[in-house]
């Protein structure tokens, strides 16, 4: 017993140390730099107090635009990704002959890197859509990614296509954990398929929804590579999401201090939203 404290130190020590060095310390340094006018080259930066934060909220229209766009994107994509993921999970747990095959097919997009997917879909939207549109005279299919709304829906389609398979796996696990007895009981009581889904399946996979919504929400907020390769923020930066906006502030305008301040605001926003979401989702879960 006497040794346990020592052992605890041995096991936790290295992890704690590395956690401090690679997470806590850089975060503290980041917060410090957000109060300076650091340009990313020199190691000495001048303290400017709250100037960066004031600039973000008073002068920087682009930041607020990016924030709005990101929130809009996050809301829509959380809904589409989880709905599609859950739908696919239901489909492949029906006991179809080809369900194993379907599972791998649906999961496959998730194995391709975000940058490559972005370029692939860029080709589909700007070339394939365009060609089909011209061939059949459908205006709707022409000029995709050239306007804000097509850029937005392009991103949503890309992300739903990529992430739905991943969410499907999570929901499959949850659905297969539902005791067969409950489903049978419902069937004997004469419940329709819809009633079973609505009153048995969905309440029991609620913990998986918590995880799924959390993952998609934080991923949508932090999205960068798909955004970069699909639209690059264009047209006129109107599809620029927060992560990309912060990167550009730092590396294009060389205002690292300002970018760091934006990153701090971003971190707080994402933390608030994610924690609130987890709190409310947890309340909904059903214990068995």
């Amino acid at each position, binding site marked *: 017993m006497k040794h346990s404290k020592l052992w605890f130190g041995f096991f936790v020590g290295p992890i704690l140390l590395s956690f401090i*060095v690679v997470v806590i310390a850089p975060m503290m340094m980041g917060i410090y730099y957000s109060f300076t006018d650091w340009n*990313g080259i020199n*190691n000495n930066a001048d303290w400017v107090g709250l100037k960066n934060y004031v600039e973000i909220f008073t002068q920087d229209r682009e930041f607020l635009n990016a924030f709005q766009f990101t929130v809009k994107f996050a809301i829509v994509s959380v809904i589409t990704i989880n709905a599609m993921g859950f739908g696919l999970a239901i489909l492949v747990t029906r006991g179809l002959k080809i369900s194993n095959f379907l599972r791998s097919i649906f999961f496959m997009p998730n194995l391709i890197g975000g940058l490559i997917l972005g370029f692939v879909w860029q080709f589909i939207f700007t070339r394939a859509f365009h060609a089909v549109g011209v061939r059949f005279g459908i205006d709707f299919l022409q*000029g*995709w*990614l050239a306007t804000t709304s097509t850029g937005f829906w392009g991103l949503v389609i890309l992300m739903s296509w990529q992430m739905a398979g991943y969410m499907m796996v999570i929901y499959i696990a949850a659905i297969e954990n539902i005791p067969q007895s409950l489903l049978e009981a419902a069937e004997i009581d004469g419940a329709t398929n819809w009633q079973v889904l609505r009153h048995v399946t969905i309440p029991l996979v609620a913990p998986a929804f918590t995880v799924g919504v959390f993952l998609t929400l934080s991923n949508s907020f932090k999205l960068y590579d798909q955004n970069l390769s699909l639209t690059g923020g264009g047209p*006129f930066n109107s599809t620029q999401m927060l992560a990309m906006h912060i990167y*550009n502030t730092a590396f294009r305008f*060389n205002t690292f201090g300002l970018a760091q301040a934006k990153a701090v605001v971003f971190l707080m926003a994402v933390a608030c939203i994610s924690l609130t979401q987890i709190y409310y989702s947890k309340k909904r879960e059903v214990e068995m």
Partner: protein
Amino acid sequence: MKMRKKLALGMVFMLVLSAFLLAGCSSTPQDTSAPQEDGEEVRETVEVDIFQFKVEIGRELEQAARAYEADNPGVKINIETVGGGDDYGAALRAKFQSGAEPAIFNVGGPQDVEDWMSKLEDLSDQPWVDLALDGILSGATVDGKVYALPFNIEGYGFIYNKGIFEAAGIDAASIVDYASLEEAVKTLDSKIKAGELKDEYPLLEAVFEYAARETWVTGLHTSNAFLGQEFDSSIDAFNANTVEFNYADAFKKLIDLQADYSSNTNSKRNLNAVDYTAQVEEGIAIERVAITQQGNWVYGGVKGVDPAVADNLDILPMPVIGGQEDVIPVGVPMHWTVNKDVSEEVKEVAKDFLNWLYTSDTGKDYIVNQFYFIPPLSGYENFKPEDSLGAAVQRYAEAGKTTPWVFMGYPTGWGMDVLGINIQRYLDGSMTWEELISDSQAQWERMR
């Protein structure tokens, strides 16, 4: 019992070791005052690290370095290439922050020179300084001291397909101002629409392709044609607190011309999705369009698609109504610099390598025939560019029909992320030309 003690000892050792390793990681970046200390121990070979951005010459530069090593035993040159404008800037900063400072790296124009001033070695005493072409060092000179060697000179304008012009019966030599350019474009457009060129050029669908998605094409290059006549040099632009847009109407006309006669005439906002590939490899190279605003650097890309087309290209001037009309903008895209914080002997080798590359006969051969550079120095009489576009740029340069590149002197990010973005808004219809001018002016002043 013994086992457990050994285990405990091992654990303590591991913990201490990991602490040291991690501490080592975190302290290196601060230690920038003497970063090359470990170089002292191996005296036999001097290692020079080059961190450069021109992807196109990556392999050829490697060969040049091997050739230099063969002549200079005891020297090792390591080349690392990271491509593309702003990515390079980010990578270079990361490189310096990590403590692995390169001996030779690249800077763009005056803003870069100012940003990196604390790291730049004074190169005024180098032999190539006296050989430089007139005014070519202006972007890298501060207080009379030269801090960087220009890569090459590059030029851009309206690249056109000579074959299509001949087939349409247009004499390109007569295009010397905006009026004659517009005339030629209209003639070409009517012939394309009438289908007269269909047999010879089945893919030809429009006169222009304009890549508004690439904000460097619009915000840097198109704008420079006009601001290059407003400012005398990039330094002049760099020192200017305001921008007047003296040629705003001419600027609008040239953008409208390119948009109105593009393949997206009916909805110009679609130009915002047109990228470099659509403009070059899937545009001018496959003879889908006849003219496009690009520079001599596209030669390699076009050649990769169709060598015959590549050799049949030439450059038309970018006319500025009210200013000089029969000119193209020519300038220095990037410079070589030497890091002054590396050890003396590394610095010497670094300088010698650059000097060798640009002034020795072997080096010159690499510059002109391997890198396809248009040399920024004199003394290259025996080395002429062989590609059609390089020759065209040199023709303009020799005739003195050039305006300078001043976009390196724009406030950081202004060209691409303010003006380029505003041009997208203009094409989209969500901003008028007057708003574009006034907003871009206001942002320039704010960013100074």
